[in-house]
């Protein structure tokens, strides 16, 4: 007979209640909780508590020197009147548009190439990982040098084929896409690694039977590889977008938000509000807006694409 208590019908509780009895169960509970205790403690103290606190801080006026004052929704109202915030918002969305599609397409192409059954492929793979494992700081500094308007390698090369020097990082229109180009170059190998692992998980016999049926390479890619890569693709899209919304390091190193406000992003504005201007409440409000933005985008993706993902054959 179906139990009518709604709680018991939730699988988590159903499992637990019925297994609560017995000495082994008691011991398992003690062992289980003591094993997860450090992780749970870390999660509560350094993630959950700060997230809740951030929500509260967003309603305060607090410069860390004097006592915090309650400000209600003033921070949020001011934010939407603040031109720098609106520019940062726009730039963050632009960054996601520049970075995410190009980055994922490139890593997929790389993964397909690096999955070829060729001699010496491991060597090529190793070279592709080098930008990924290198510290962002060193790579970004290298690109500041490469992008240098007067003596940077890229402009020197361009001048050889008769193209006038480009102001990569000092032109307001170009600075953000130039930084995005660097980030795409640097991170391509990371997503490639995940695509590659997924490619290697596709059973070979599928391709063999498709070949017997006379399917072209292109058909094989669209009908076998692409659908079977969908869980990996979905994972990469979600993670890339979450990461892209928070871009900070690249900006901080390469342009410090300039020229003008042309490379200010939400994270950069949050950082400068908090640590340059000591406006903790304001920064807290920015972080809540970012949180909400990322949450909404992730949920939408889950809704639209989550169900179409092909997990099994």
């Amino acid at each position: 007979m179906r139990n009518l208590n709604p709680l018991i019908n939730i699988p988590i509780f159903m499992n637990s209640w019925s297994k609560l009895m017995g000495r082994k169960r008691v011991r398992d509970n003690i062992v289980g909780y003591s094993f997860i205790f450090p992780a749970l403690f870390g999660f509560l103290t350094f993630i959950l508590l700060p997230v809740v606190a951030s929500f509260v801080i967003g309603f305060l006026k607090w410069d860390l020197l004097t006592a915090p004052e309650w400000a209600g929704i003033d921070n949020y109202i001011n934010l939407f009147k603040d031109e720098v915030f609106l520019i940062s918002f726009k730039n963050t969305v632009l960054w996601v548009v520049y970075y995410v599609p190009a980055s994922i397409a490139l890593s997929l192409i790389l993964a397909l190439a690096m999955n070829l059954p060729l001699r010496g492929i491991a060597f090529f793979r190793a070279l592709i990982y080098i930008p990924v494992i290198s510290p962002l700081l060193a790579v970004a500094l290298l690109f500041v040098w490469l992008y240098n308007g007067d003596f940077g390698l890229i402009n020197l090369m361009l001048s050889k084929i008769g193209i006038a020097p480009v102001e990569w990082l000092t032109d307001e229109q170009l600075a953000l896409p130039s930084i995005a180009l660097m980030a795409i170059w640097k991170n391509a190998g990371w997503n490639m690694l995940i695509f590659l692992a997924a490619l290697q998980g596709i059973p070979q016999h599928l391709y063999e039977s498709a070949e017997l049926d006379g399917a072209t390479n292109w058909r094989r890619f669209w009908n076998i590889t692409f659908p079977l890569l969908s869980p990996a693709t979905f994972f990469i899209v979600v993670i890339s977008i979450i990461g892209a919304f928070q871009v900070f390091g690249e900006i901080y190193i390469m342009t410090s938000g300039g020229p003008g406000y042309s490379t200010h992003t939400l994270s950069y504005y949050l950082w400068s509000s908090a640590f340059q201007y000591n406006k903790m409440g304001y920064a807290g409000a920015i972080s809540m807006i970012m949180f909400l933005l990322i949450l909404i985008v992730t949920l939408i993706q889950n809704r639209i694409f989550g169900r179409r993902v092909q997990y099994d054959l």
Partner: protein
Amino acid sequence: MLFQKRFGKSLAYIALSVMSATCIVPFIWMLSTSLKSQKELFKFPPVWIPETFQWHNYSDAWHAGGLNFSLMFYNTMIIAIPVTVFTILCSSLAAYAFARVEFIGRDFIFTMLLASIMVPPVVSLIPQFIMFREFGWLDSFKPLIVPGLFGNAFAIFLLRQFFHTIPKELEDAAMMDGCTRFRIWLQMFLPLSKPAIATLSIFTFQFIYNDFIGPLIYINSMDKFTVQLGLASFRGTYLTRYDLLMAASVFTIMPVIILFLFAQRYFVQGITTSGLKG
């Protein structure tokens, strides 16, 4: 047919070479810049191989502007080693419980932990800063070490997936002989998951080593600088000395490259078997 195959193969090799060259050429330029004299820096057409290698750029960069990279490497290790070790220990202990022990609310807690991967770190940044300030931990290594000692959701998820692949019979037999859960974790699960643990250790170490935002926010005194923070401050003082800047970049990249070359074979293996393939 044979011709077609050979042609396809050479084409593939050309494509692979172009791809990997794009990845590697900027680093060669970095290396080349680091060995140039100041005059050669701004020469046209660009010089790839300096006339005489200015090896002293490296020792100059090591001590430039009152920085001391020996101390900064030491500081970085003081942070990165305990964080890496404890991340592996605490995460694998929790992962074992989530994979094998049945306790009340297990699935709920696991789902919650997993959802926390989606929480952007910037959201917790401000409250954490205020909290560590209250503790009097600013300008010390504590804010960089302590939050990393309890394991993290990503590592737990990866290791739990890996633990699922270990046959249950092995464990049952050990339990029959009166082996405790703790010993099963320590003497059976840890040794059996070497590839996953190696991959995770490298990721964690690299993450901590490469991080400059944490040190940027929490560290002020020069004698507590990490390698990355040193490099960042270096840029401020030597804006146009690209020779020294690139030399410093080379030796900050070296440790991760060496680590990677040693552990390379674990990389794809570790990720494939730990279920990230989806």
